């Protein structure tokens, strides 16, 4: 039973989409096939959900963030991210933009539990990190644009014990060992939605793999709500809920 922890987690995620389908079975099979064809890409989309790729609010020096949904819940991606301001906008000279360092790490708790307790899973490792920098500049009192770079790395490994391999789409799956790493450029724009509340939209583009996403976010002092769009992903729309504190 425990060997299915990871697979169930993945299946639960496209449960919602499947309800809307006309031919539920064929759509589900198609999506499952896409996950199996490239598991790293599927799990990396969730890493992007927890990555903090917006600049620190003006006046803040550092910040911490953790992804709540869909990362910690239900995928058990335990994660922490941080931001550190190296230069405030206009500090050295007028017009010199703000510069922030960003980074974060995550590890999937379910993978550790499954490896430890399962009779069928031989080994499992799902985890990753990212690091980068973001510059941001105000183009008007109410609009700030930001530009960035991030290096994202992820490992996705899963192996079943001999004789316990599951069968999916008519094929016995014994193991997969895939990873993902790429250098991304980030371009975004931020505008206030209300007092202490911001609205932003950004594009993340991976230079080697052509992986790309568009993130739309609303955030205040503590929480961030977002819609992350992965047009080429298995789950195209990820509703996102993150928590952050900036000092």
């Amino acid at each position, binding site marked *: 039973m425990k060997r299915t922890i990871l697979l169930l987690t993945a299946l639960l995620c496209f449960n919602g989409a499947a309800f*809307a*389908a*006309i*031919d539920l079975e*064929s*759509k589900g099979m198609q999506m499952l096939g*896409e996950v199996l*064809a490239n598991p790293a890409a599927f799990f990396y989309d969730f890493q992007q959900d927890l990555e903090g790729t917006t600049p620190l609010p003006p006046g803040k020096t550092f910040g911490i963030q953790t992804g709540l949904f869909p990362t910690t819940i239900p995928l058990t991606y335990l994660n922490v991210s941080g931001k550190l301001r190296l230069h405030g906008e206009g500090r050295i000279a007028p017009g010199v933009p703000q510069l922030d360092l960003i980074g974060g790490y995550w590890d999937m708790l379910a993978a550790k539990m499954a490896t430890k307790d399962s009779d069928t899973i031989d080994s499992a490792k799902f985890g990753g990190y990212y690091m980068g920098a973001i510059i941001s500049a105000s*183009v*008007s009192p*109410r*609009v700030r*644009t930001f530009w960035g770079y991030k290096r994202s790395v992820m490992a996705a490994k899963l192996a079943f014990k001999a004789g316990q391999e599951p069968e999916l789409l008519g094929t016995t799956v014994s193991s997969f060992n895939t990873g993902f790493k790429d250098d991304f450029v980030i*371009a*975004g*724009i931020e*505008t*206030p*939605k209300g007092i202490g509340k911001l*609205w932003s*939209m*950004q*594009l993340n*583009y991976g230079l080697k793999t*052509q992986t*790309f996403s*568009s993130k*739309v976010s609303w955030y205040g002092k503590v929480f961030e709500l977002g*819609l992350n*769009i992965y*047009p*080429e992903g298995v789950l*195209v*729309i990820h509703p996102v809920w993150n928590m952050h504190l900036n000092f």
Partner: protein
Amino acid sequence: MKKIILSAVVAASLAGRLYATVAEDSKIFTPFFDMSLNEAAYVPSVGNIFSGGNINTQVGLLTKITQKDQLFGLYNFNYAGPGFTPQDSKQFTDRSLSHSFTFEYRRNITEKLRVRPGVAFTTDYSRSGANEAWKNGLYNMTSSGLQLAADYTFDFERNGIVSLTYLAKSVKFPNYTDLLKEFQDPRNTANVNGGLQDQGIKQVSLRPAWGKWFGGVTYTQQDYKNQKVIGLDGVYSLTDNQKDKTTMLDAGFHHTLWIFELSPMVSYTMHRSNQNFLRYKYFGAVLNPADLSGTSDVTLVAKNYDYNEFTLSVPLYLNITGKWAIGGAVNMTSRKYTDRKKRDENNNYVAGLQKNLMTTMTGSIRKRINETALVQLYYALTVVGSNNKFEKYMPANYTGNTLGLSYQLSY
């Protein structure tokens, strides 16, 4: 091919919008930022539900060097995802991803006359429903080109400008090969069949804009570097290369009256090609040079690609409050082939010319978040019909429902 024509025409229309980007008097640098996102669920009457959308990001910077000299640089990222498309264009699941760079030098010769020489580079990746890696797309394309444009202001008060633009581009398809030829004769390799889509594009456009009105005429010529024309005897010519010519006329206006916001646009396109078409009725059909008529298994259709196309777009918004608006739109694309006969379900040519019609009716709710951002929820009903009933590879008659969400942030 339609894609190239479309991108060339879009480039001409886009140029119209971008040349209007002006430097603020007090600034040396004026940024241009436009980011839009559209994601939708598609439910066609043929095939299964799918999702698709578009992402477009434009980032530009206008630099004022002197009062008369400016530099404008623009980067454009565009992703065109799966979606409903007019017949004879692409599959629902085809998508493309492109990066474009444009650099333009602007010089005011007189108060009324400005010239804009420039260069443009584009890399375009294509992907089919088979989900091949982006770098392996059969229709991946790179292009580089030069532009020379002149703007003449004839009415300062009502912003009356007429622009004459000349573009010359070299387009290459590094992965393209004629798969059918290779299949028919294994001795044919990519070395022989590669480069068949490579072409040079020349485009001239004249576009006036006055107050709320805009319009223009655009002429595009595509000169294929290697693709030969199929002769009327069904054999590839040894000397004549394919040459396509497209002329497009378009006009529209944007008007706001009380709570009504209307921006209709019409266009008429005439596409002509010297290329002909050999229709193989079924797999394994054998060409008989003595009989290439419509009743034979292999039929030659002269001027198969020539068509006239009319498009109409009428978006209307009712601004109920300062933030909220209700929208409705009708979009129509009507294509009539000049020489291509229609086909029945069994791939037989029958009397009458092929006609395609695609109509989309959209209803939407739009919220303006602030002066730079807006969000829109929309539903669209698409009705696609054609008198071509041979739909083994591409649907020509279907209805589709679309439910989507779009965001836009622009500065």
